[in-house]
């Protein structure tokens, strides 16, 4: 019998080998696999190796949403396999490129199927479609898969209900790596399909499935019957291959196709559909964006995506997802009264079923999880990244409280969701700026050791929090903030020269134009996103000169250090700047 290609689909486990919070160690064609089910039911089939130092992931932890490596606590997300947290560097978001090798998975006939390729799906077997299938004990055999398939044609078993009868068995069908047998005796009939999982060149597992579940009293006798008969078959197969080694065991199989389970277009964008849209609070609409194909890239708490709207605008929105919630990206969008077409489009025109493109998540607001206490401070729609953080902190069992400033109770979003977490939620409703200041000064009065502050919301709230924290003696590094927009009134009146150290080019930046614009005029591609000094994408190293900072991304100490600047808004105090470009 010809061997099917290495890229075919094979069963690698039974569905009940992957109960909640367990990691099953499987193997297919020499590739070791970590098979685990997340709390949302999704079954992950991954290369069984942490990317960091090669430790088997099967000795790690399945926490329900992420797989955690036993060695250094690296966390990998449900579905995409992207790394979400590296505890040795708690202040950094892991690079998007740190992503485990993930294989597609499908559950069918009570078995978990995968492929080392990336296309297609498990075989359809008419006999088992819609049947009340009954899985037999998987039987490992020390023989190559093609030899086992040949022998399975001579397997003799009796139908349930006539186990002691004299059965007639016929081959009812032959698949690439399966065989279907029908046994009849004394007016009873049983159909069985046997799939063969090649473990490596010399070993395989026979996975038998009966098309009908025997009655309760018969279940154990039927299992025993097959255990006995299959063991006899195994002994016969193994004695037939003694002295016939299958040749050198192949190296671990490489993926036949390098296409990722996280497909992106050439611009790096992901094609998504609005799976659900709902009213989250007064003036706030929620959206769940699902991948049209494959999986979405991993994210961390604090991350945002660029949403490319059909009207040509690009807007950044924070993800509100908790760890392991990887089926879709969750956004909450407030309708801005002065909307230039972003939030108003989303509110008025974006409906369930609509398709759009989004960027991979970026994180300028990463959450440290190496502290004993965390203060989250949200103003209005600034709640969104903090909801994701509250999920992660609750999941990790870390103490935290969330102060939520809003105009009134009807403007509170995510109240029910937060209620299900271990978060201590304190709402501050309808406060005047003065009362807000008093509340902020009270909550940051004690800069305890090992405590961090995360604040997101309107510019004045962030500024007031930073001022209050600085006055109470908090170090800059303990106060993390994310502006939705830069409230600074930008001054573009200066003119100066910029020398590019690596490009050996000097350009003049006139009044009214930004460094970024002038560089682009000269054909120099610099990554940039918000272009208002808020997102950090265009951060550039300063080698000489004194930058005139106008961004809100860097903190005060970083501004004073003067060795980095946001070239989309910041300018120069000196006549000349030398940049590391």
């Amino acid at each position: 019998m010809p061997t099917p290609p290495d890229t075919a689909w094979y069963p690698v486990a039974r569905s009940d080998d992957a109960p909640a919070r367990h990691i099953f160690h499987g193997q297919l064609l020499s590739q070791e696999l970590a098979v685990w089910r997340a709390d949302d039911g999704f079954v992950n089939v991954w290369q069984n190796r942490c990317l960091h130092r090669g430790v088997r992931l099967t000795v790690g932890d399945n926490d329900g949403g992420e797989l955690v490596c036993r060695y250094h606590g690296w966390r990998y997300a449900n579905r995409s396999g992207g790394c979400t947290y590296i505890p040795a560097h708690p202040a950094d978001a892991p690079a998007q490129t740190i992503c485990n090798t993930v294989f597609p998975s499908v559950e069918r006939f009570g078995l978990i199927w995968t492929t080392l390729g990336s296309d297609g799906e498990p075989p359809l077997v008419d006999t088992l479609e819609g049947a009340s299938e009954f899985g037999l004990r998987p039987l490992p055999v020390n023989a190559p898969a093609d030899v086992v398939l040949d022998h399975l044609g001579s397997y003799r078993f009796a139908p349930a209900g006539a186990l002691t009868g004299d059965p007639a068995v016929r081959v009812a069908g032959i698949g690439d790596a399966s065989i279907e047998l029908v046994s009849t005796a004394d007016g009873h009939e049983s159909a069985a399909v046997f799939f063969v999982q090649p473990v490596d060149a010399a070993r395989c597992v026979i996975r038998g499935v009966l098309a009908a579940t025997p009655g309760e009293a018969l279940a154990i006798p039927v299992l025993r019957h097959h255990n006995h008969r299959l063991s006899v078959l195994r002994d016969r197969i193994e004695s037939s291959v003694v002295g016939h080694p299958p040749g050198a065991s192949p190296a671990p199989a490489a993926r036949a196709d390098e296409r990722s389970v996280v497909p992106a277009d050439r611009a790096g964008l992901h094609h998504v559909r609005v799976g659900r849209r709902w009213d989250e609070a007064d003036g706030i609409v929620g959206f769940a964006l699902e991948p049209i194909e494959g999986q979405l890239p991993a994210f961390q708490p604090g991350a945002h995506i660029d949403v490319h709207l059909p009207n040509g605008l690009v807007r950044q929105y924070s993800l509100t997802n908790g760890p392991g919630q990887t089926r879709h990206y969750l956004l909450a969008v407030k309708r801005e009264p002065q909307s230039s077409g972003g939030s108003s489009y989303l509110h008025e025109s974006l409906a369930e079923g609509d398709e759009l493109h989004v960027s991979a998540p970026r994180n300028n607001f990463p959450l440290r999880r190496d502290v004993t206490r965390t203060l989250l401070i949200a103003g209005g729609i600034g709640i969104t990244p903090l909801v994701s953080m509250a999920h992660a902190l609750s999941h990790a069992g870390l103490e935290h409280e969330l102060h939520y400033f809003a105009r009134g109770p009807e403007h509170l979003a995510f109240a029910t969701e937060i209620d299900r977490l271990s978060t201590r939620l304190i709402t501050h409703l309808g406060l005047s700026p003065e009362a807000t200041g008093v509340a902020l000064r009270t909550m940051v009065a004690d800069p305890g050791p090992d405590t961090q502050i995360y604040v997101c919301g309107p510019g004045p709230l962030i500024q007031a929090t930073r001022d209050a924290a600085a006055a109470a003696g908090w170090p800059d590094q303990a106060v993390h903030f994310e502006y939705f927009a830069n409230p600074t009134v930008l001054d573009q009146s200066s003119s100066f020269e910029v020398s590019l150290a690596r490009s050996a080019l000097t350009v003049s930046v006139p009044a009214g134009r930004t460094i970024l614009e002038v560089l682009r005029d000269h054909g120099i591609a610099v990554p940039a996103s918000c272009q208002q000094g808020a997102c950090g994408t265009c951060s550039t190293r300063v080698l000489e000169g004194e930058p005139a900072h106008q961004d809100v991304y860097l903190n005060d100490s970083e501004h004073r250090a003067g060795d980095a600047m946001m070239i989309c808004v910041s300018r120069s105090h000196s006549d000349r700047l030398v940049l590391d470009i």
Partner: protein
Amino acid sequence: MSLTEVSAVCTDRVILDRWHPISALAETTPVPQRTQLLGAAIAHRRVGDPEPEVWLVDDAETPDAGPPLPVLVRYGYVWTSLGDPIDLFEIPEFDEPDRRRLNAGSIHVATSAPRAVENFLDLGHFPYVHTGLLGAEPHTEVTEYDVDIVDGEIWATRCQFFQPQAAQNASGGQMTQYTYRVPHPYCVLLYKSCAIDPTRRDTIGLFLQATSPETCRAHNFLCMVDEESTDTQLRRFQQLIFGQDKPILENQQPKRLPLDPRVETPIRADKSAITYRRWLTELGVRYAVVPAD
């Protein structure tokens, strides 16, 4: 097997021409004991002072005799070589008279010697592998430290890590300071702030006997400033720690240390491991590693 055949087992001149530990001196006996070094069967026995005998078992029929191998007794261990060994590294603290010097255990590990060295250099695993002893969540950060090559040895200095209970009499956690030193491709030492005398540092070593490219015996060397603990207590603690590392080491794939930095995913915290891999490449080590080329 003759000496020329040994080089068929390990052809790596850099490794052959080194001293390798094969037993604690205190554990040698007048009855010959067999062991393995770099794929070769060897044996040793104590024949009275000063030095034991070590020989190559080149004929399985007569395991108690064979071509003699060079012998060095240092730091409480018997060292030998299958080549022309360069001088063994110095451990000046070993000669301080009030130090406790002992072998805390010689333990077989189903991984390569360099994987064990690299694990010994690593701080980031303390909260996950040595939970409650050398580290504890959520204190997981590895702060920046310095790594340099001094006189042909790797030195990692200014290393520190949060330790939940730094000493038996300490209450609460504190930052513990470490210095690491790699003076030999398969030997590594650490100097750790001493619980009893803040002016001195405990010295702990891991000397690996590469039995094959993918297996080793780890000799746990202690040289401590400690008047309180019994030998058994010192050994028990070190064996507890190493017993926690062993299953991790045995679940690393591949077992040989990959020297190409692209094969695994190093981070800033791995500065000493990155230097160690580059240093092995520059020395030209090919045994028990996956070379970069």
